[in-house]
């Protein structure tokens, strides 16, 4: 008994003793972290920014300090307990959390220069919804729309195609969109098995079939009006070209596209813009609902007309960003106005995203074309809607493709997808955007185990903020998917 008690006491003593890195020498090499969370601005309600210390070490500790609190965390896989983290965020709101990394190498403790994270006052919306999909071309398998609680690591399916297909039949799900950050008002398209557009308003869901008359396609890219039951859609006749050599493996282009407005209450569709010589796409409403932004490419500008085989000139097609006024009472549109003349800079701008405060506009810009997720030149540009000046957001762009982006409801955070990690699988990055119009260093969406980003063989697609999690469950949505189709009426 006595030897046992002594052993236990020794064990307790050793466990409680200091890790032993006091007086550590300064490390001469550069600290390697994954993800790179050094010197970032984080919201006051974000999940713990767990990271891995990649610098070689036999042992590793990290001192995390914020306010007057310090916690010691064991590395190299630094996993911050959620309760401690949120306490730390509360302590450090408006100031910084610093991380001091200590490593033991060849019996010597070394300390790296500390890095900090600034905890900004502005919070980020609670949830982010995205699709997970292979970066494939036309085939697909298991697809899921998933909601992530940004203050923790919890994820839940909003809907997945296994409920309907069981991986036996095929059902594609895409283009999820929420009305004004409301998690219970949304839509997405289901294609093939039990296909239709699923539109969910407060407590009710319907499945709509739009294709009628001479519409060139079912609706594709959606945008809910912020406060009316109206959805602007593009109609796109889309083709793909496969690239035999090089890192860009596929070229996606439209041969025709138009814009329509769908009235959810009356189930009526009408054209917004329909010019056979123009390719209009990617509609998006301003926060006040009085302006519709969209991208448009005018075929004659690059020597094309209705008979041109656009597959031969994909690298010449360039889009500009336009806006058109809208009267919510009369539901009439005004005259289109050019917002960003990307073509004059030999660029192509698509996917306009106006900020909720109405001051700025984000666009996806590349050297040509409309599907920049496949272009390494794909970057994010910012237009100041007051001054009309557009410039690339160099703080958040990378040499690889940046694509889908979304503003938080307070216009202070941007979520966007990027292929910067490996050139193929998109990951979600978050970046702070301050009131002066400056973007700050983006950071990878925190994961419980950051290595998950390496193990996941799917891309994150179309991140959309919502203020809360949806009350809809996959099985409840499944009921709508199995329900009868309603047919929308096209009004000429």
């Amino acid at each position, binding site marked *: 008994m006595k030897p046992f008690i002594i052993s236990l006491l020794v064990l307790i003593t050793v466990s409680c003793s200091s890790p032993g890195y006091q007086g550590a020498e300064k490390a001469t090499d550069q600290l390697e972290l994954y993800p790179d969370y050094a010197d970032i601005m984080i919201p006051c309600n974000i999940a713990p920014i767990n990271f891995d210390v990649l610098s070689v070490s036999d042992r590793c500790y990290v001192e995390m300090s914020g306010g007057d609190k310090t916690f010691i965390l064991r590395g190299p896989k630094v996993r911050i307990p959620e309760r401690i983290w949120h306490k730390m965020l509360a302590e450090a709101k408006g100031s910084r959390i610093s991380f001091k990394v200590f490593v033991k190498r060849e019996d010597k403790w070394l300390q790296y220069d500390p890095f900090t994270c600034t905890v900004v006052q502005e919070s980020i919306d609670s949830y982010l919804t995205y699709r997970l999909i292979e970066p494939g071309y036309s085939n697909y*398998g298991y697809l899921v729309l998933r909601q992530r609680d940004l203050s923790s690591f919890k994820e839940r399916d909003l809907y997945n195609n296994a409920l309907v297909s*069981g991986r036996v039949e095929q059902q594609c799900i895409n283009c999820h969109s929420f009305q004004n950050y409301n998690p219970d008002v949304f839509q997405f398209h289901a294609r093939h098995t039990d296909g239709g557009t699923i539109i969910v308003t407060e407590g009710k869901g319907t499945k709509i079939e739009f294709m009628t008359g001479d519409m060139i396609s079912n609706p594709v890219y959606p945008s809910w009006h912020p406060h009316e039951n109206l959805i602007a859609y593009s109609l796109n006749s889309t083709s793909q070209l496969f690239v035999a*050599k090089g890192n860009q493996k596929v070229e996606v282009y439209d041969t025709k596209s138009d814009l329509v407005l769908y009235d959810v209450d009356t189930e009526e569709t009408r054209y917004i813009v329909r010019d056979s010589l123009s390719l209009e796409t990617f509609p998006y409403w301003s926060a006040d609902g009085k302006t519709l932004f969209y991208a448009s490419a005018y075929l004659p500008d690059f020597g094309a007309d209705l008979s041109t085989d656009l*597959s031969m000139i994909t690298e010449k097609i360039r889009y500009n960003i336009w806006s058109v006024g809208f009267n919510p009472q009369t539901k009439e549109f005004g005259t289109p106005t050019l917002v960003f003349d990307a073509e004059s800079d030999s660029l192509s701008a698509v996917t306009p995203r106006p900020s909720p405060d109405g001051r700025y506009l984000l666009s996806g810009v590349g050297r040509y074309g409309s599907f920049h997720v496949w272009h390494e030149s794909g970057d994010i540009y910012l237009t100041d809607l007051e001054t009309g000046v557009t410039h690339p957001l160099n703080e958040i762009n990378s040499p690889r493709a940046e694509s889908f982006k979304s503003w938080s409801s307070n216009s202070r955070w941007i979520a966007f997808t990027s292929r910067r990690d*490996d050139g193929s699988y998109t990951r979600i990055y978050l970046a702070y955007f301050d009131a002066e119009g400056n973007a700050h260093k983006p950071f990878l969406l925190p994961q419980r185990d950051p290595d998950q980003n390496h193990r996941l063989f799917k891309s994150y697609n179309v991140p959309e903020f919502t203020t809360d999690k949806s009350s809809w469950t*996959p099985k409840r949505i499944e009921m709508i998917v199995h329900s009868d189709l309603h047919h929308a009426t096209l009004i000429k």
Partner: protein
Amino acid sequence: MRNINISHYLKAHKYLITDIVFVLVCFFSLLVFKGGLLFHMEQYSLFVWDLEQFSVFMDQPGGFLALVGTFLTQFCHFPSLGALFIAFFLWLLAFLIRTAFRLGESRWLISFIPSIFLLLFICRLDYSVFILKTYGMLFSQILGLISAVSIIFIYRKWFESGNHQIIFILSSVFVFFPIIGIYAMIPAIFVALDKKDKKVVSFLAAVIICICAPLLCSFLPDIYQRINRKYVFMAGLPYMEFQDNIICMIPLFLAILTILIIPFTKKVSLRFSVLSLTVAVVLLATFTNWDPNFRAVLSMERAISCNDWNAVLSLAKQHQEPTRVQVLYRNIALFQKGRLTEDMFKYPDGSASLRTRAHIPISYVCAAPVLHYCGMVNSCDRLVMETSASFSKNIYFYKYQARNAMLRGEYELARKYITIVSRNWFQGKWVRRHLGLLDNPDAMKTDGEFSLLLALMRHDAGKYDAVEPLESMLLRNFSNPEYVNEQIYEWQMATLLTWKDSQKPIFCFFNRANLFPGSHVTNGIAEAIALFASMTGDTGLMSNLVDILSSQKFILRKFGDFSNSMNMTRDPQSERAREQFKKPYGNTYWFYYFYNNISALL
């Protein structure tokens, strides 16, 4: 005396001897006849031990079977080990049946019948193994039945004497349905029918419970978020594979049915048991997939994985009526040996169709290695990505994606793929080699294998929009007749000659001859150009050819003999003429040109 002792020994140990014989027969049958299949199933599998993967498996009732099955499939990397495991589990099933159902001397042979049907299920597999969506199928169904019989064993051992059958049925179905799927119903049915009195009541209760458990799983909102109600009663079975091909599941159903019938066979004689077992064995022998081309394809695939090009060529020689898959694999191997256009027409050629119930394009079978080894890495990537998205991700595809990424200079992406491969057992050698190249990418330029591929990648086939048959893709890629380098020239000519294009090869040939006067001309090319040049009737061309082939005049003489013979034959396209020409000219391009049907290329 000695004979009596042996006979006595055999009688005393008949169960043990039968078990050993059963295991050995299963083991050797699988190893000899299905070794290639076992290796293939391992390569077309993926086991990653982490929480996320675990939750993906457990998100379906019966997913645990697939999880364990996938783990065990790793051992099939060594077919002998895989065969041993399968044989062991088949024996274990028989042993448990014997024990749980207390089969006496007259019935103990019946215990092998479900195992034989499960063996048949494996041995029947055909080209559908290239489009599997389910993991772990080699083991999961055997484990399902083992689990079901184990539950029966537990019941017989500890719960039989009491009067709580309904509770046992209820708890076993609700506990085990999530783990082993529909196999949890077997003990429920057995327990209900085993009850001495109120059999009808207990049977009805069992049926209701068996129906309720899956329905609850599919309707309750917060559990099983990815379950399709239509298939919930097939949970644990590989229903995704055989939706249009239910006949392939018959051996499984027979195995399950046999177990359900066993309790009703208390009065059968030994003779009946022997007869039943014999019938099962005959069914196994009759319905096993003996297709020699299928075996060859799997063996070649394995040889390519090991870079054993000689083995590929040896297999190519053995089959006189190969499928296009075998022909393409042969061509890859010949190219690696530097003898593509030299020897390709000396091997058997053919277009035998894939013997399979489902329609499976050959691109699903062999696109990855064919496109990769032709340097069409983007096309390889596309098809691999499409196939793995539609069916399942696996080590085989990740290996090609890793190599494609390395060749394109996408090193972070390559490392991602190599890392996932490394997490599966027995991939160390492959992983070490490729990580070594990744750490020193310049070494690829001097590496025998990668340098060839890099040379092929200098060719740019531009953009294309169609989804085409595989050999059409090769033709489109290599149809540009411009000379780039020797490697591309070899594939250009091989592809054009395969398609019997009589114009472009002439251009390619003379272009190269002008660029590199005196360079070696392979026999296959010389034969083809002799034929095509004569078809033009251009004497100047023929004269040039004679000059170029001054050291290979025997080919021109032989062609002269061939032409004369053809001219003198009354009906050169007849089967008789074909046989007549086969012996002297069967290993020439001329025989291929006149007597091979290329419609299957489309």
